[in-house]
């Protein structure tokens, strides 16, 4: 049943400071909304519980994408289209550009924001695994000040994050100059456009002297939050990619993931597809090594 839209309050203070003052005055009373691609769906379906919303759309200081020598900084209200069109993202963080291109269709990408995607905290979201692989940091802001932390510490549990009621995500920072030679991203969904992932794996790595020198593996829809698969990484680090080692890594992944059965897929399917994706990535790792050897 549709909501009675007249019962919902929406205000647009127009600046970051004004939004933060509102959040500080009544912590927890106001829900921030950027492009509305999540909350407006809930409204249309008659299940939007929050009655007081504050608009972040049009606050330019939250939408900038800027780069210095060390960091690319993406404002939380930058849209997926903004991200796709950014030259530094395209050149240095191509997996993020690809993940952005999968986040709904063009009209969704024109309104959906990176910060919204992160705060919504779906384990199936497209961008978070990539942010984990690129070792992103996240900057939070409130009227009391700012704090910054590794993005890997942001998600606490299913749909739970460290964000306090009076806080906003201000920006995501990506370290520049650390790109690794092998990058892998694959999403498995019902169709390419618009489908939410059944499972997705984002991996980066480098070989050295025939062994895995660096590897980062992050997954969507395999745990209750977007997560690095650290036991799987540990099973690979420092080892040559023999068929036995690849089997061992598959087993490590299967033990580490905690997928669920839901409307989009089953736990069993997700786990085994994830292991297959891992193997596909490891084939690319092995191939990169043979290319670099004399």
């Amino acid at each position, binding site marked *: 049943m549709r909501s009675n839209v007249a019962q919902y*309050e*929406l205000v647009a203070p127009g600046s970051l400071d004004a939004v933060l003052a509102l959040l500080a005055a009544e912590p927890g009373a106001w829900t921030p909304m950027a492009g509305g691609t999540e909350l*407006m*769906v809930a409204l249309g379906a008659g299940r939007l519980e929050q009655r007081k919303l504050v608009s972040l759309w049009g606050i330019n200081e939250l939408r900038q994408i800027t780069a210095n020598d060390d960091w690319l900084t993406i404002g939380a209200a930058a849209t997926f289209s903004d991200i796709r069109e950014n030259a530094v993202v395209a050149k240095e963080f191509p997996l993020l550009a690809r993940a952005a291109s999968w986040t709904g269709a*063009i009209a969704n990408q*024109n309104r959906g924001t990176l910060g919204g995607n992160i705060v919504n905290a779906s384990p199936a979201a497209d961008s978070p695994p990539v942010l984990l692989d690129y070792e992103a940091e996240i900057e939070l802001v409130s009227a009391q000040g700012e704090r910054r932390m590794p993005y890997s510490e942001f998600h606490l549990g299913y749909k739970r994050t460290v964000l306090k009621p009076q806080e906003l995500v201000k920006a995501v920072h990506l370290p520049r100059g650390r790109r690794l030679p092998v990058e892998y991203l694959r999403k498995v969904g019902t169709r390419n456009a618009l489908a939410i992932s059944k499972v997705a794996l984002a991996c980066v790595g480098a070989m050295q002297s025939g062994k895995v020198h660096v590897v980062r593996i992050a997954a969507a829809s395999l745990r209750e939050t977007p997560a690095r698969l650290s036991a799987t990484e540990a099973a690979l680090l420092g080892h040559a990619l023999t068929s036995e080692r690849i089997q061992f890594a598959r087993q490590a992944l299967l033990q580490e993931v905690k997928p669920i059965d839901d409307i989009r897929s089953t736990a069993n399917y997700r786990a085994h597809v994830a292991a297959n994706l891992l193997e596909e990535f490891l084939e690319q790792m092995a191939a990169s090594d043979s290319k670099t050897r004399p």
Partner: protein
Amino acid sequence: MSAVKMQSAEIRFKVNGAERRVNVPPMKRLLDVLREDLGLTGAKEGCSEGECGSCSVLLDGVLVNSCLVPALQVNGCEVLTVEGLATNGALAHIQQTFLELGGTQCGICTPGMMLAAESLLRKNPQPELDEIREGLAGNLCRCTGYMRIINAVRHSSQAPATAAVPAPEDAVHR
């Protein structure tokens, strides 16, 4: 329910070039403002969740699903709906090619489809087939099988605005 204050806001924005002013709840969906308050029924309601694209309009030149845009966020903006595509009674080029190449059947998806095409062609006047498919991927059609729509967009990107458009050689589903 009676204790809840009914919310209302004055929204001024431009629709198809004309200044409009409405007093509506700030969370009212742009789609409903267009259809109920302004009588512009070109944008259609399909899925109500940003999947089908039948409510697509251009907001400050950017393709959006009007079912997901709250009225307050269009204050001071400019909206283009399908009603604004034709000028002085003459069909826009994209409308002409949809008509001539059978890109329209039942018509529900057509307004959104044409605005998605318009958005694509403004940014990329000569799109490749893949780019047309991506540009239209958020707009679902259950009649045409898409080939005729894709052909209409392709011909709109190629032929001069007034020329008769020939039947495409690669059209399928005749």
